[in-house]
C-alpha cells in the first residue's frame, strides 16, 4: 500500500499535558514545577478521587501518580484508570519514596506503565517524558492515518464491502451503508453478506454483472469486482460494486428512442416522397417543365433525408454493438451479380453503365449476404454518383494474398489526396469545390468500412486526380475445414484491434455476443480457439463457462481484466493495455493452434 504523506510532527518531542497527583503539597508543587520547567503543562490533584476525576475530564496525556495517598491510594487509582480510560492510552507513571521495588512491581501489575523514585531526578523525568511524548506522537500519527484511510474508504462513491471467510460483513463504506440494509434493521456490521445483498456466497474473485438487493428490497443490476486477501491466518474478500441501473435504463431509452425515431421520421417522409413521386409520374396531370425541375429537387432531397435516417440508425446500432450479423459461407460471384442488378436502375437514371467482370466461381467468403449487398450498394451508388454521364463503373473480383478482393472502379474526378485519409471518417465529405459533394449523407463510407470490418475484412481506396477512384475491399477466403479462431468483442475498436493483431496468423471470425458465437459455431464447426473480451457480456464466469463448452481453448483479452479472477476461472488472460500484450496474445494463439492440430 502506498500511504499518503502525513503532515510532519510539529516537534519531534511534543509538549505534554501532565496530571500530577500527590497529597503532600510541597512534593506536589516541586514535581509540578519541574514538569513546567521541562516545557510541559501541568494540572494537579491533591488526592486519589480528584486525580480520577481530572484524568477523565481534563484529558491529560500522562499521569504522575503518587502511590501513597490517604483514602484512594495510587494502586486503586491505577486500577480504576485502567478500567475507565478506554478510548486512548493514558500512560501512568507511579512515584514513591519507599525503599525497594516491591510496591513498584505491585503498581506495574495493576496497570501502571512506569515508575519513578522520589525525589524525582530531573534528567530521568526529562528522558521519560520525552520517551512517552514520542510514543504518544507516533500513536497520534497512526490514528490520523487510520482516520484518513477511513475517510477515503467512505468517500469512494461506489459501495465497498469486506467480508470474512464466513461471509460476515466486517467493513463497509458509507455508499455501502446507503445502498444496503441488514434484514430486520440489524446492523450491517457483522451481518451476513448473502442476507444483506442477495449475492451468492462464497463470492471469491469475481468480475462481472450481478443482481444486488438494495435496502428497499429492489434488485439492482450492478458490476461487481471482488478480490480475496489474507491477514495472518484470516482470509477476507473485498467487494467493490457499481450501480448499472442508470446505464441500463439509458440503453433501453436509447433503443426505444431509435425505434420511435425510425417510425416518426419515416411516416411523414413516406407521404412526402410518395406525393412527390406521384406528381412527377403525372398522377395529378401533366406538369410544366419548371415544375418538374422543382419537383425533382424536392424528391432528391427527401430521398436523401430518408437515406440519412437509415444510415444514422445503422451507425448507432453498429457503434453500440447491437447489429446482428448472420454470417454464412457464400460464393461472392453470385452476390456481386445480385448487387449489380439491384443497382442497375439507379445507374441507368444517371446514364452510367455497370460492368461485372467474369467472376471467379470458386471465390467463397464468410459474409452476411444482406450486409454484403449493403456494402456493394454504398460503393456502387458512390461510384455512380461521381461518374460522368455515359461513364462506366467496373466491378472486379480477384484473389489476393489475404483472401478475395472486390474492386469498384469509377472514372469520375477521383478522390483528392488531402481527403483520402479522412474518406472513411464519420461525416467526411470533401468540400463542395472539388465536386465530390454529391448529396450523400457523409456516413455511407464510414458505415461501409464498419460493415466490412465486422465481416473480418479491410477496405481502402486508390485514386489519382482526374482518373477516377477504385474502392477495394478484401474479405478472408472461406475454406471449409481450415482452422479458424473466434473473436468475441462488443466494442468495434476492440474488434478492429484484435483483427489487426491476429489476422496474419489465422482466419478470424468476429462476433458481438454468445448468441452469434453459438450460431457461427453451428455453421462452421468448432474453432481452434477463442479470444474473448468480457466487457459488456454479462457475468464473466458464465461467459467463460459457455465459451469453454463451445471452444476447447479460450483466452480472455481486455482492457480492464482482473488477473486474480481469470486465474480463479482457470483461464488464460491478457491485459491488452499492457506493453507486450500483442506478442503474448500471438504466442498464446500459436500454442493454441499447435495444440489443436
Amino acid at each position, binding site marked *: 500500500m502506498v500511504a499518503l504523506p502525513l503532515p510532519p510532527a510539529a516537534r519531534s518531542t511534543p509538549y505534554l499535558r501532565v496530571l500530577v497527583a500527590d497529597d503532600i503539597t510541597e512534593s506536589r508543587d516541586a514535581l509540578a514545577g519541574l514538569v513546567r520547567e521541562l516545557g510541559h503543562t501541568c494540572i494537579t490533584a491533591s488526592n486519589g478521587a480528584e486525580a480520577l476525576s481530572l484524568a477523565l475530564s481534563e484529558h491529560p496525556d500522562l499521569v504522575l501518580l503518587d502511590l501513597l495517598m490517604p483514602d484512594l491510594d495510587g494502586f486503586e487509582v491505577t486500577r480504576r484508570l485502567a478500567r475507565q480510560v478506554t478510548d486512548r492510552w493514558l500512560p501512568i507513571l507511579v512515584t514513591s519514596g519507599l525503599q525497594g521495588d516491591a510496591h513498584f512491581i505491585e503498581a506495574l501489575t495493576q496497570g501502571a506503565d512506569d515508575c519513578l523514585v522520589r525525589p524525582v531526578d530531573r534528567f530521568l523525568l526529562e528522558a521519560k517524558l520525552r520517551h512517552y511524548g514520542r510514543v504518544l506522537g507516533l500513536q497520534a500519527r497512526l490514528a490520523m492515518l487510520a482516520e484518513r484511510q477511513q475517510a477515503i474508504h467512505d468517500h469512494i462513491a461506489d459501495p465497498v464491502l469486506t467480508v470474512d471467510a464466513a461471509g460476515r460483513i466486517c467493513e463497509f463504506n458509507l455508499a455501502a451503508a446507503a445502498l444496503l440494509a441488514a434484514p430486520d434493521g440489524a446492523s450491517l456490521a457483522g451481518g451476513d453478506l448473502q442476507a444483506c445483498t442477495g449475492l451468492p456466497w462464497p463470492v471469491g474473485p469475481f468480475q462481472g454483472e450481478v443482481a444486488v438487493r438494495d435496502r428497499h428490497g429492489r434488485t439492482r443490476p450492478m458490476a461487481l469486482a471482488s478480490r480475496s486477501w489474507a491477514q495472518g491466518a484470516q482470509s477476507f474478500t473485498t467487494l467493490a460494486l457499481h450501480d448499472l441501473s442508470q446505464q441500463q435504463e439509458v440503453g433501453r431509452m436509447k433503443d426505444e428512442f431509435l*425505434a420511435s425515431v*425510425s*417510425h416518426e421520421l*419515416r*411516416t*411523414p*417522409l*413516406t*407521404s412526402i*416522397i*410518395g*406525393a412527390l*413521386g*406521384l406528381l*412527377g*409520374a403525372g*398522377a*395529378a396531370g401533366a406538369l410544366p417543365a419548371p415544375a418538374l425541375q422543382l419537383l425533382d429537387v424536392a424528391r432528391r432531397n427527401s*430521398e436523401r433525408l*430518408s437515406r440519412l435516417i*437509415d444510415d444514422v*440508425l445503422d451507425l448507432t*446500432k453498429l457503434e453500440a454493438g447491437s447489429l*446482428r450479423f*448472420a454470417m454464412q459461407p457464400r460464393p461472392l460471384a453470385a452476390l456481386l451479380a445480385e448487387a449489380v442488378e439491384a443497382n442497375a436502375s439507379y445507374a441507368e437514371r444517371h446514364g452510367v453503365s455497370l460492368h461485372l467482370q467474369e467472376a471467379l466461381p470458386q471465390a467463397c467468403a464468410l459474409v452476411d449476404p*444482406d450486409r454484403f449487398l449493403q456494402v456493394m450498394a454504398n460503393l456502387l451508388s458512390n461510384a455512380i454518383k461521381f461518374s460522368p454521364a455515359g461513364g462506366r463503373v467496373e466491378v472486379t473480383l480477384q484473389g489476393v494474398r489475404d483472401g478475395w478482393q472486390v474492386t469498384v472502379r469509377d472514372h469520375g474526378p477521383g478522390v483528392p489526396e488531402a481527403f483520402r485519409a479522412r474518406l472513411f471518417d464519420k461525416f467526411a465529405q470533401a468540400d463542395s469545390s472539388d465536386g465530390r459533394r454529391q448529396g450523400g449523407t457523409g456516413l455511407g463510407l464510414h458505415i461501409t468500412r464498419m460493415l466490412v470490418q465486422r465481416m473480418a475484412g479491410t477496405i481502402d481506396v486508390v485514386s489519382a486526380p482526374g482518373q477516377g477512384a477504385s474502392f477495394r475491399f478484401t474479405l478472408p477466403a472461406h475454406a471449409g475445414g481450415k482452422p479458424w479462431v473466434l473473436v468475441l468483442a462488443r466494442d468495434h475498436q476492440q474488434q478492429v484491434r484484435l483483427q489487426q493483431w491476429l489476422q496474419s496468423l489465422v482466419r478470424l471470425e468476429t462476433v458481438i455476443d454468445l448468441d452469434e458465437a453459438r450460431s457461427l459455431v453451428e455453421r462452421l464447426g468448432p474453432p481452434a480457439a477463442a479470444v474473448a473480451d468480457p466487457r459488456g457480456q454479462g457475468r464473466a464466469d458464465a461467459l467463460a463457462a459457455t465459451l469453454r463448452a463451445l471452444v476447447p481453448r479460450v483466452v480472455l483479452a481486455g482492457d480492464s481484466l482482473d488477473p486474480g479472477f481469470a486465474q480463479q476461472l482457470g483461464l488464460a488472460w491478457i491485459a491488452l493495455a499492457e506493453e507486450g500484450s500483442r506478442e503474448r496474445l500471438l504466442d498464446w494463439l500459436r500454442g493454441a493452434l499447435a495444440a489443436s492440430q
Partner: protein
Amino acid sequence: MTSMQELRRVMCVEDDPDIRTVLEFSLGGLGGYEVCLCADGQEALDRVAAFRPQLVLLDVMMPGLSGPQTLEHLRTRPVMQGVPVVFLTAKAMRDELEELLQYGAAGIIVKAFDPVSLPKDIRIYWEHGRGPAA
C-alpha cells in the same frame, strides 16, 4: 389463386391520412385498382366482408389494433380465405422484418415505398402469394 383471375380489389389499412392519400393515388389513380381505405384495424374488420379484398396492405404500427393483431382477426373471416396480406412498415431491421413474416404475411413493403411502382409490386405478391424476395 389462379393467374387467370385479375387483381382488382385492394384493401389498405393505414392510420396516417396522408399515406392513405398517397396509396389511393398510387393504387387507384395509377394502378386502376378498386381501393378500400381503412383508417384502423377495426374499420378493416367492419368492411372486409362487404368489400371482399383480393389483397390487403396492412400498416404494422397503428393505434388500437396493431397490424399483427388485425391480421389475426382477419384470418378468422371466411372472405379472407387465401387472400394475401402484405405488411407496410417503417421498420427496417432484418430481425424485426423476420418477426413480422412469422405472423403469416405474404410479404413486407418497407416505407418509404415508391408509389409509382407500388401497383406493379403488389401484383407480384398477389400472383405468388408470397414476396418476390422471399
